[in-house]
């Protein structure tokens, strides 16, 4: 019995039909019937059309749609003047090409395609939407599903894909006929070309008399086709990779199986984290297991990328292993692979890998290490790819010398900067040209028969090692938004620009009236030298009763950044400013950050002030929050502030206030340390730039002055006070920051190293115990040892995170590192979005203004937090990568230095050494150390014995102090300049 779908005419121009389908979700199966309305007044959006302007109706805002399609579209010999209709597969694979300015103008996007794209990939959907919105590319969405002329209902036994393909073809057919019939006769003939990479669909289109071509053929036939061909992504159809079947990865399980397995607890879902030392080993943290599951080997990793959401299945107990102690880099493993053909056919794993796996398996079964055996797993499904744009460069080996000059398209490998990712096979005509350049590639697919993922070239960033290319590369790699602010964002800024002034009349509107005038307070700011975005300032004044009035004044960013504006959206999206060695990527436009909000000296500025009354022991007696107006008396750098405080001849009130602040801050710090706050260390360095040439000059470790900690203590105090206040006012949605206690398993290896090598241990009972035990771990022979240990302990910590208060119970709010019950970020709204939200919530809590809905809604707050957590992490990584790059450049200039280093990790075939002076760590491989065959790895004692280059027996172990020679070398694989360490 076929389901005949009735159509019923409701009124002229409006017809109703029915859609019946089965919704299968979470194992259920529901019949869903929905009514679907069709109309006859959907315009074609072509300027050449004489009919549609007549029938078009305005929308709800009384706006008429814009007819974007040009009346003289692009001409190609084969197609004449033509519009393009896109198929879904084209949008999904070639969105970069669609965004290209030189091609794909006057494009019709059928609604069916738009919906299919949305279901398949939301990021691509938003990009397509953006294309359709902007007028320059002339993309028009045609709502074919709602047009009486183009709606098709599903036939009996027709798959939904076939039905959609038919709907798109119907749409092409309609446009062609419509244009032929209603085209302004003064305009030349306009054809409709259907671009589609599905041969079956194209054939069906050709059968219906629709001009259809594959993407490659279409681009080739364009007048400027030659230049564009490189941007055409790799696809099944068209000139695809002619490689043999190199390998066979296990197929992924069906969705049904995955969902069933996850539900009954036999499969686990999580995000895979591939080791940066060993590209064949990944771990995945699953709530069901205390320790992360290990995934070892190419086959078990099964085409996953670092960061993918995957589903794993446990391997039998016989295959459980201890984590690998070996460094495995892809370049050494597959150096001989040729991009053009695969290696020996029918081989699933290379022998080298197999041996490696065997070795692992043997070790796992050996008795003495049985306690460290961890369960292993294999990946059986990937729920969400983490694919983005990747930066890398073409592997020289993969481009044969003789073909570098030829213009023919050929396959080559792109080695990505991120070592935990496999190389990507792309097809390009410009391989020779692109050698030695940083290029951006996109990943298209990873078929189960291919050893490598397949992708396509997106753009070149410039020569390897050029500052501009490297900076852009690291921004891209850490998905930092670095485009200039859009016009819409800039329109939200005050019209007066730099001339904006705090109003002189303080009885203006109600908001001004609510502000406190603190211009008489002796406020000053203390920041790093050269700081232009000053977001905090302080003052202290002794009260008649001997207590102190201390004020922290924070730039009032939310006075300018109002919720639900493009400016706010941009800030929320960027989440944080990113600080690179030579560059700052702002979260908010410069006008606000460095001028209007910045608490510059000698001018009036709006501020958000926290005023405490503190007694002489720095106990809080009273806390108040005010929107205020301040006038900073002076902007100090840390050094200058220190000098002024130390200079006994200075006896003015401002200096006295600063001395009081310093005094109080020392007491605050002691209180904090007594409560168990941690004093952790990271090897932070600063690169001095030669201001003339912008060449990096020298590297130094950041020095900390007492004034640094002065500012820090009061900022912490302000953050804690604000956190309490907004949590009181908004118990469910207050923007807070927590730092979870590290699980004991994180410290297992470090503690074991300490026990074996130094006979010391770290206690994890509480943050206080941890802090005390860290203090006790002192090696009299080695003054740096304690700092080294703190650096290593820091790496075992959990990352702090933003969260809305409703997400955790009060006990879990705790900030472990600061030993504070509750914490938030309030003091840097110019460069952190969390602070912006905290400002708005505090303003609402003190009744200054009402709170926007998005900060009162738990789900919205969770989204905000998720984004700023990610951005915050990425910004940190980008900053570190920038330092790493510049340190590499510095090395280039003073090569062959001998420096002190410490061994922090021992593998069976190499060691990792940290050089505190430069804050770098480097891997020294066994081959470099000495005779690889004589090496004996003792994983109980974390030591490695070997014969060095001179044939002398040597044993080195973790924590050991070594002298290393640092050479700056260009890593041949990633073309990253790296410090190459050699043991002296």
């Amino acid at each position, binding site marked *: 019995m076929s389901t005949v779908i009735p159509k019923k005419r409701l009124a002229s121009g409006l017809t109703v039909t029915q859609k019946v389908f089965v919704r299968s979700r979470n194992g259920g199966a529901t019949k869903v019937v929905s009514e679907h309305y069709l109309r006859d007044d959907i315009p074609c959006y072509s300027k050449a059309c004489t009919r549609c302007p007549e029938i078009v109706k305005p929308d709800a805002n009384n706006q008429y749609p814009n007819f974007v399609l040009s009346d003289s579209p692009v001409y190609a010999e084969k197609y004449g003047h033509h519009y393009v209709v896109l198929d879904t597969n084209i949008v999904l694979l070639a969105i970069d090409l669609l965004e290209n300015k030189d091609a794909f103008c006057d494009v019709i996007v059928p609604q069916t395609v738009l919906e299919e794209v949305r279901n398949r990939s939301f990021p691509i959907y938003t990009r397509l939407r953006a294309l359709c919105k902007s007028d320059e590319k002339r993309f028009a969405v045609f709502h074919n599903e709602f047009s009486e002329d183009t709606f098709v209902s599903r036939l009996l036994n027709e798959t939904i894909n076939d039905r959609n393909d038919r709907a798109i073809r119907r749409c092409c057919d309609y446009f062609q006929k419509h244009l032929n019939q209603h085209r302004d006769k003064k305009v030349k003939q306009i054809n409709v070309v259907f671009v589609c990479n599905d041969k079956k669909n194209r054939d069906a289109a050709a059968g219906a008399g629709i001009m259809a071509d594959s993407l490659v053929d279409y681009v080739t036939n364009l007048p400027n086709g030659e230049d564009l061909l490189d941007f055409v992504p790799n696809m099944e159809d068209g000139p695809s990779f002619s490689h043999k079947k190199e390998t066979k990865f296990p197929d992924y399980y069906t969705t049904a199986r995955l969902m*069933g397995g996850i539900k009954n607890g036999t499969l686990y879902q999580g995000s895979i984290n591939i080791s940066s030392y060993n590209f064949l080993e990944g771990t995945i943290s699953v709530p069901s297991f205390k320790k992360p599951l290990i995934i070892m080997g190419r086959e078990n990793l099964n085409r996953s990328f670092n960061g993918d959401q995957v589903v794993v299945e446990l391997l039998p107990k016989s295959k459980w292993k201890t984590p690998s102690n070996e460094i495995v880099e892809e370049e050494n493993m597959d150096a001989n692979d040729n991009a053009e053909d695969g290696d020996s056919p029918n081989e699933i794993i290379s022998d080298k890998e197999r041996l490696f796996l065997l070795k692992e398996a043997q070790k796992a079964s050996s008795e003495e290490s049985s306690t460290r055996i961890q369960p292993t797993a294999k990946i059986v499904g990937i729920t969400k790819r983490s694919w983005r744009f990747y930066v890398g460069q073409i592997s020289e080996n993969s481009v044969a010398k003789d073909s570098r000059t030829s213009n023919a398209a050929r396959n080559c490998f792109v080695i990505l900067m991120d070592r935990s990712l496999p190389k990507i096979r792309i097809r390009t005509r410009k391989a020779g040209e692109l050698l030695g350049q940083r290029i951006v590639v996109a990943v298209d697919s990873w078929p189960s028969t291919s050893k490598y993922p397949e992708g396509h070239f997106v753009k070149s960033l410039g020569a390897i090692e050029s500052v501009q290319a490297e900076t852009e590369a690291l921004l891209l790699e850490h998905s930092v938004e670095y485009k200039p602010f859009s016009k819409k964002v800039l329109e939200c800024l005050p019209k007066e620009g730099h001339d904006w002034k705090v109003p002189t009349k303080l009885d203006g509107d109600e908001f001004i009236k609510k502000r406190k005038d603190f211009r008489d307070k002796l406020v000053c700011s203390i920041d790093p030298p050269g700081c232009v975005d000053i977001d905090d300032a302080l003052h202290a004044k002794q009260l008649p009763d001997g207590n102190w009035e201390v004020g922290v004044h924070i730039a009032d960013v939310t006075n300018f950044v109002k919720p639900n504006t493009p400016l706010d959206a941009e800030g929320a999206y960027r989440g944080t400013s990113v600080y690179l060695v030579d560059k700052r990527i702002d979260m908010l436009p410069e006008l606000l950050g460095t001028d209007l909000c910045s608490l510059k000296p000698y001018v009036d500025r709006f501020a958000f002030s926290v005023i405490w009354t503190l007694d002489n022991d720095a106990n809080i007696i009273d806390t108040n929050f005010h929107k205020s107006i301040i006038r900073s008396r002076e902007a100090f750098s840390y050094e200058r502030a220190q000098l002024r405080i130390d200079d006994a001849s200075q006896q003015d009130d401002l200096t006295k206030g600063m001395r009081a602040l310093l005094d109080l801050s020392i007491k605050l710090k002691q209180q904090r340390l007594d409560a168990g706050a941690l004093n952790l260390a990271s090897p932070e360095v600063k690169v001095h730039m030669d201001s003339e040439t912008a060449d990096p000059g020298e590297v130094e470790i950041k020095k900390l002055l007492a004034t640094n900690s002065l500012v820090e203590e009061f900022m912490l105090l302000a953050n804690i006070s604000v956190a309490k206040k907004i949590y009181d006012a908004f118990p469910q949605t207050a923007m807070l920051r927590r730092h979870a206690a590290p699980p004991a398993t994180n410290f297992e290896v470090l503690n074991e190293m300490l026990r074996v090598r130094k006979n010391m241990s770290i206690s994890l009972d509480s943050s206080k115990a941890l802090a005390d035990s860290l203090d006790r771990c002192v090696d009299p022979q080695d003054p740096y040892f304690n700092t080294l240990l703190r650096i290593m302990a820091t790496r075992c910590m959990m990352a702090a995170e933003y969260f809305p208060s409703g997400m955790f119970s009060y006990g879990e709010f705790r900030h472990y590192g600061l030993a504070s019950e509750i914490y938030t970020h309030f003091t840097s709204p110019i460069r952190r979005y969390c602070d912006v939200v905290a400002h708005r919530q505090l303003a609402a809590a003190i009744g200054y203004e009402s709170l926007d809905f998005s900060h009162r809604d738990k789900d919205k707050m969770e989204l905000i937090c998720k984004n700023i957590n990610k951005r915050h992490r990425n910004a940190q990584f980008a900053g570190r990568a920038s330092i790493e790059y510049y340190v590499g450049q510095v090395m280039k200039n003073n090569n062959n230095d001998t420096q002190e280093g410490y061994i922090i990790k021992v593998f069976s075939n190499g060691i990792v050494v940290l050089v505190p002076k430069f804050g770098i760590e480097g891997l020294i491989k066994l081959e470099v150390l000495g005779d690889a065959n004589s090496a004996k790895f003792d994983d109980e004692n974390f030591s490695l014995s070997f014969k060095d280059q001179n044939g002398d027996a040597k044993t080195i172990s973790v924590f050991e102090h070594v002298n290393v020679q640092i050479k700056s070398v260009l890593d041949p694989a990633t073309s990253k300049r790296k410090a190459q360490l050699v043991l002296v």
Partner: protein
Amino acid sequence: MSFSVSEKDYLYQSLSSKTPIRPDGRKSHQLRGIEASINFLPNSNGSSRIRLSDGSEVIISIKSKVVKMSTLADLIELDLTIDNLRDDLTFISDWTNILRNSLLRNFADKFECLKLTTRYYFKLYVDVLFLSSSSNARTTKTDTSFLQNPLSMISFGIYLALKSTRLPLLISNSNDKDIEELPTFNDDWSSTVLLYPQDEDEEIKENNTTSQNSSSPPLLFVLSVVKNNLFIDPSIEEQEISDCGLVIGWCSGKVVSPIESLNLNQSGSSEYIKGMHGQNIIEGIKMIENVAATVSKGLDEIVKDGNNSVFMDSIF
């Protein structure tokens, strides 16, 4: 519709005589005409509607849900609503039980059709709404006067609804004994399968009654007993004065349980309730055996005709 004592007496006399005369002139084995249609509820997996000329009406909706298996008896749930009467009335739960049990007992091989995998089954929700001709005359939610026994009509409705029921097509693995899978289904409604597949070669097999009826839902027939006479599908007047009622099930070509006596007089006046002989039951079974096959064939015609409303005249 309230009869005086003499009217009732007259009715009783004419029905209990050797050559009984039914008030509407039907033969004793003749059913009333019905108007029936199927698949009129778009959101249900199967549905049917039956109307009688006296204005009473029964609406059946069947919906399916995927459940993890517990016991077979849990796979069918039946909910009976009569007019706006309270649902905790004894006779409503009695009727619900009769209907549900007859379905469960005669569904045996059909449970296979509901089986999706070794773990998952379809559960059927049968919702029955009966609107009696006298619903407007009711004053309270417990007033059951002039309520005719609807079992027969409802069972016809369920028969039609079940035969029009379509179940989503499983596309995931059906063997999940060792490896659990969450069932997934084809999203195309036209790919769904009928719970009771329609035989393509029905014409050929028409003569072979047993085979044709081998997979049909059960039917219930209500008989009214007046002395030695039996009347199939008694009208409200006949029910009022019956000695006793009898319900007989029929499925797959033979008489099946339930074979039970019933109180047909819902008004509560017990003056006419008398009971029956064993002979009545044997005669009743005989009568059903003669009539039922025709009824089910007639109902099958409705199913074949699909959505169109079919008026079945008193052909039975």
